């Protein structure tokens, strides 16, 4: 069964797309690309921007951020390719780079790229990203490879569960790229309103503790976009986050 219904939808014809390469300058929206290592993140980046950043089939190819841009619907999008990481716990330099960017640069949209065949492990990162930012698009990449191996993904259900747009892609073959661009635009401009999945079944004690701190935070920082996540970091004693709160760096 083919799940690529999107292939026949009208946005496929995106004559209003211009790839800008490195010509960044001023931009309307900031887009971050996050994902596990070796899921084809750089390929997605190249497909969006028309750049040719080297893509390698191995972990740790990108340790620094690459940047590019594209035009869509008369808006300019700057794209930042974050280092591939398994989590956002900031235990290593690349994880810290990725987390800090989403946290402090507050991208208008975060595109999370995952490997369709490694859904379970990859979703860990997706949930962590969704704890920090609301505006995200999920790109389930390498879908052709997964289908070849007898794995199919229900994108509608996944989108429902996560509360963000989900696109099945094969970036190497250019499949699904126009849909990602469409959703990036819709999420950035507020046409699509994300309702990120953030409920968890923590043990009761933990849940109460998080709720308690969250409500205290809400009184003092009504604008904080990721209260629960900040509450958890405070409960863990994350000094970097506490300092950032003190310096008022977490609110828009």
């Amino acid at each position, binding site marked *: 069964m083919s799940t690529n219904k999107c292939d026949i939808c009208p946005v496929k014809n995106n004559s209003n797309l211009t790839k800008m390469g490195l010509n960044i300058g001023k931009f309307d929206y900031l887009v971050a690309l996050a994902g596990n290592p070796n899921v084809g993140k750089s390929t997605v980046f190249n497909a969006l921007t028309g750049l040719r950043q080297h893509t390698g089939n191995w972990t740790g190819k990108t340790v620094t951020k690459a940047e590019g841009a594209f035009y869509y619907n008369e808006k300019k999008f700057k794209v930042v390719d974050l280092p591939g990481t398994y989590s956002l716990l900031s235990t290593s330099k690349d994880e810290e780079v990725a987390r800090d960017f989403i946290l402090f640069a507050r991208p208008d949209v975060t595109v999370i790229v995952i490997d369709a065949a490694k859904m379970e492990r990859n979703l860990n990162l997706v949930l962590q990203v969704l704890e920090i930012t609301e505006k995200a698009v999920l790109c389930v990449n390498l879908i052709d490879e997964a289908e070849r191996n007898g794995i199919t993904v229900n994108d509608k259900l996944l989108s429902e569960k996560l509360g963000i747009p989900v696109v099945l892609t094969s970036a190497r073959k250019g499949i699904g790229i126009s849909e990602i661009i469409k959703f990036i635009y819709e999420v950035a401009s507020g046409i699509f309103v994300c309702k990120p999945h953030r409920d968890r079944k923590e043990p009761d004690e933990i849940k109460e503790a998080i709720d308690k701190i969250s409500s205290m935070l809400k009184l003092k920082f009504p604008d904080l976009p990721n209260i629960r996540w900040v509450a958890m970091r405070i409960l863990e004693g994350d000094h970097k986050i*506490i300092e950032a709160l003190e310096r008022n760096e977490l609110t828009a």
Partner: protein
Amino acid sequence: MKHEENTESKKNNLEDIISEANVLRWKSGSNFHDDIMDSLYKDASDIAKSVINYTGEKKAFSFDKKVDRILTNKFLGFPVMLLMLMGVFWLTIVGANYPSRFLSYILIDVIHTFLKSAADSVGIPVLISGFLFDGVYLAGAWVVSVMLPPMAIFFPLFTLLEDLGYLPRVAFNLDNYFRKVGAHGKQALTMTMGYGCNAAAVLSARIIDSPRERLIAIITNNFSLCNGRWPTQILISTIFIGALAPTYLASIVSASSVVIVSLLGVFFVFVVSYGLSKTLLKGEPSFFSLELPPYRTPKLLSVLYTSFIDRTLLVLWRAIVFAFPAGAVIWLISNIYIGDKVIAEHMTDFFDPFGLLIGLNGIIIVAYIVAVPANEIVLPTVFMLIVLTSKMTGIGEGSGVLFDMENTASIEELLRAGGWTLLTAVNLMLFSLLHNPCSTTVFNIYKETKSIKWTSVATLLPLFIGIIVCFLVAFIWRLFV
């Protein structure tokens, strides 16, 4: 002032949240972080299960697994690895010969002759045209004609292995050994990256979390032969080692000698890592899991594009950028007299005793000093200095001219005339593996470690090892040969 008050009040506000958090953490008593992560993993796994369907039997990646069983096999893994390396070098050595000859004909026989005669007819002073065309231009032309063909073959092949997904298998095979010597398994990845460029690999060591293990990876990275050094290895092994064997075996013999030198590099990676983790950088290796990506059919065009634009041209450009000033410097030091000798001769004479002691010679030492910015220009410098100091006639067009050899036979003739022996060649290959990193790499090491001490260790340790190894080889060689 007002702003400060503002942040101050925020700070006070946070105090009570933090103290409340401390109380709650104390009360819950459990490991907070682990509980949060557990529930997140559970959530992810629930969602994943509900949206994924397995059609047909679960034959997922059965082909990959079969291939992996061979490539990462305990016994077969290493032989297969060696065969692949051999194959890549062999193709490079065999294939590079003809385009190299063609390029040197165009760039040197045709263009250089034209430039010189044009300069004469326009009346540019010999001093200036010599400096420009015999020094600067010929250095660049030499680098292009000798380095471009092997790179244009080697890099696509290497990129092909990379895109296929073979490099993580190499890392997988080596991972266990790295942990045994007290280093991080991911060092296998940074090491393989070093085969492209040490300067880039030093940056890639960021994927290693623990500072101790990252330092080990950075310090030992120079033992991976880089772009700038492969041509030296390939050329010298073709001229001297390959020549020892009958013609039909020559390219295989030279390819194996390059493999042996790179394996020696791997050996030093392990020995030095072990030494460091037992002395200066003590500690336990940290755990990590390495993911074997699925094999992907490389896209031919993108392989050609990346290997040509990102690698070949980039390296070539770097070599040319450094070759021009180096060509100028060489021309100058071989044309400016102090007393009865030119500067270059003073220098080579000065370094000759030391060079000979370690089985090299003064010229090679001077070449390595000139080539600190880029390993790529070691050989061009060597050739030029030989012509100059051996006062050969009939080769080259004047003092300080960096010229090209039409084929390996005439290079060999030149080197033998310069007093080179098999020992010189072997030790040059060893010294090319074991010496200080290029200045870009040193700069990156400093940027990454922010420590003069570790930068010096990373710079001087390989050089020290190189001198010792070359000395020992020369010493033993002279006892028996």
